[in-house]
């Protein structure tokens, strides 16, 4: 019987981790659909940024209540993984509480896992209340209808169940140890300390050893199978941030927020235009057999974006802090930086599936621009960087907005008319207004 359960466990583990590895490979493949961008410079600063923002949760605590609760869940998640390690070893080798040889240290470990499990449970319940009872505005905007809303709640239910199972497992185990059950009890005394699950003991009072074993085993199995399922749920969920927050903060922009990237392709053309020796009417050098694809300026679809922007999209956990800080969104405009990220991810999934199915991208008559993100959203941005500042995991929605504006401006000449007039003024007289450049110093002589 024992060996059967060991085999079943190994099979579940292999499948769980195997599927997870497959999803991660797919994720990397999709992210690599983005254009190349070099973000390998300044590794020390990048590590520091990751340590501060992802590991240290420095931006989460800007909103103290959500920040503290999130730290409970985050620390709980990381620390309780040590317990998962023990569960995996026990599962494979048929042992029970393999780490218990640590003695007092083990008691402290299990005790702290229990306290953390309770804190996670409290955190998750409060999160659920904030979403579903208090109905915080940022969780109820347009882009949060349907799957995004359900996804968020599923994650919370899942964590509630996992933590409850963990405590039930410990409680039943504790009772079995008290009763001196074979395989559970140890002559050295009680293994582990149970500051939280001890309060569950009255529930188990009077139950037979065999019933308790069923409860303990059921909780143990459901807990670990639940974790394996959750691992594979990540790819389909906003919860992917628990992994991607780390690379995302590492590869985040280090330059001042106000600095927008320089478009190299444009620089080359501008240099050519400014070069007095260049012949504007010269025919482009014919290269036999090699048809050069003309450079496309800006972005109209996901493969025009760079891989960091695509990584950003997968990292977004849809918390909506960006949108709640956005001046356009706060004043009722359609723009929501969160929606920009969600749309980018949805479209990337669609393009990725298209490529998997057809071996290469087959035109589906859709693109990120217009089919997902409208020009009305793009033109409402004030480029104030509030969204970038607000993001707790270093996402830059502004860079996507700018790249899409570049496409509208340079490929389609599709800017709002007043803006086009200003552009014309800059071009003709060096100011966004129709004043003559020769009048630039008139102010000095005016009273």
């Amino acid at each position: 019987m024992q060996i059967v359960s060991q085999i079943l466990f190994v099979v579940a583990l292999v499948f769980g981790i195997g599927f997870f590895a497959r999803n991660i490979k797919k994720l990397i493949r999709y992210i690599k659909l983005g254009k190349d961008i070099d973000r390998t410079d300044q590794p020390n600063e990048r590590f520091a940024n990751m340590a501060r923002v992802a590991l240290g949760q420095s931006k989460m605590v800007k909103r103290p209540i959500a920040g503290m609760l999130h730290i409970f869940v985050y620390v709980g998640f990381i620390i309780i993984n040590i317990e998962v390690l023990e569960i995996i070893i026990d599962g494979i080798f048929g042992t029970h509480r393999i780490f218990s040889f640590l003695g007092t240290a083990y008691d402290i470990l299990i005790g702290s896992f229990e306290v953390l499990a309770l804190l996670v449970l409290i955190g998750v319940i409060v999160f659920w209340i904030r979403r579903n009872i208090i109905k915080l505005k940022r969780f109820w905007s347009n882009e949060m209808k349907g799957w995004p809303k359900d996804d968020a709640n599923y994650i919370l239910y899942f964590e509630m169940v996992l933590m409850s199972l963990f405590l039930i497992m410990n409680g039943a185990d504790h009772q079995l140890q008290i009763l001196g059950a074979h395989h559970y009890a140890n002559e050295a005394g009680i293994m582990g300390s149970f500051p939280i699950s001890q309060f569950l003991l009255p529930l188990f009072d009077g139950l037979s050893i065999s019933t308790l074993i069923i409860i303990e085993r059921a909780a143990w199995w459901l807990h670990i199978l639940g974790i394996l399922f959750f691992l594979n749920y990540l790819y389909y969920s906003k919860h992917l941030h628990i992994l991607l927050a780390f690379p995302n903060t590492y590869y985040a922009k280090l330059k001042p927020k106000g600095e927008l990237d320089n478009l190299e392709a444009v620089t080359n053309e501008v240099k050519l235009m400014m070069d007095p020796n260049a012949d504007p009417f010269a025919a482009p050098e014919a290269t036999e057999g090699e048809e050069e694809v003309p450079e496309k300026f800006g972005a109209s679809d996901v493969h025009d974006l760079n891989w960091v922007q695509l990584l950003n999209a997968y990292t977004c956990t849809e918390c909506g802090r960006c949108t709640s800080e956005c001046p356009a969104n706060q004043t009722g405009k359609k723009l929501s930086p969160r929606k920009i990220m969600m749309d980018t991810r949805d479209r990337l999934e669609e393009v990725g599936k298209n490529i998997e199915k057809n071996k290469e991208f087959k035109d589906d008559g859709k693109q990120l621009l217009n089919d997902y993100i409208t020009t009305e959203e793009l033109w409402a941005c004030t480029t104030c960087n509030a969204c970038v500042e607000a993001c707790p995991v270093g996402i830059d929605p502004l860079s996507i907005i700018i790249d899409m504006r570049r496409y509208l401006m340079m490929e389609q000449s599709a800017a709002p008319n007043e803006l086009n007039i200003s552009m014309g003024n800059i071009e003709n007289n060096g100011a966004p207004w129709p004043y003559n450049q020769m009048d630039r110093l008139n102010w000095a002589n005016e009273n």
Partner: protein
Amino acid sequence: MAEAIKVPTMAEYMAEGKKPEVLFWVGCAGSFDDRAKKITKAFVKLLSKAGVEFAVLGTEESCTGDPAKRSGNEFLFQMQAVTNIEVLNGYEIEKIVTACPHCFNTIKNEYPELGGNYQVMHHTQFLKSLLDEGRLKVEGGKFKGKRITFHDPCYLGRANNEYEAPRDLLRKLEVELVEMRKCKKNGLCCGAGGGQMFKEPEKGNKDVNILRTEQAIETQPEVIAAGCPFCNTMMTDGVKGKNKEGQIEVMDVAEMIADAEDL
């Protein structure tokens, strides 16, 4: 304004074979907008008072290209940038000061990659350095004890992490500095950035400058201090929209210092 202050150009300096200490980049708003011209003049007075040898480009100055870049017109931006850089490098400019955070951000951050490398300062940073060096003395004057709130320009604050220089100047004026609910890193935009100054806003239920003005009014200020000509326009319009123009003034920090000094 009693007497006109001499505003030398780079061309004049060049003709005399001299170089000024700093180039004052006036910007489009500072050159043409009636409200912003007052800021330009106030700043020039302070420069003169501190004995700073400065020059302007005058008719050789052109838009930095900021609105073009942020609207997505990278071509126009780079044409502007390359032309300006040619002029600036021709005069061997090393240090630039400007009263516009948009010009400040663009020249400081986006010109280097196109061959323009200068030490660029926002006018509040420059005034602060004059104060620190003892070249300019600022006393409370008429603003002493008045309730003042400072509106952070996005392109000085979040974009370039400068929150303290303008506030230090206000403290020197011995004002009662009150912060808005949303300030510094979390400051709300005035609504003008990213090309919005030059177009109608998209459909919504409020204008951004009204929301920001409401936040400013919550602090019950006598003056809303600004550090950007565009913010200044937006907040001035906001105050008018709230029918508070009799009670609340919108002033640039440089104007306040010049005013306090009775320049």
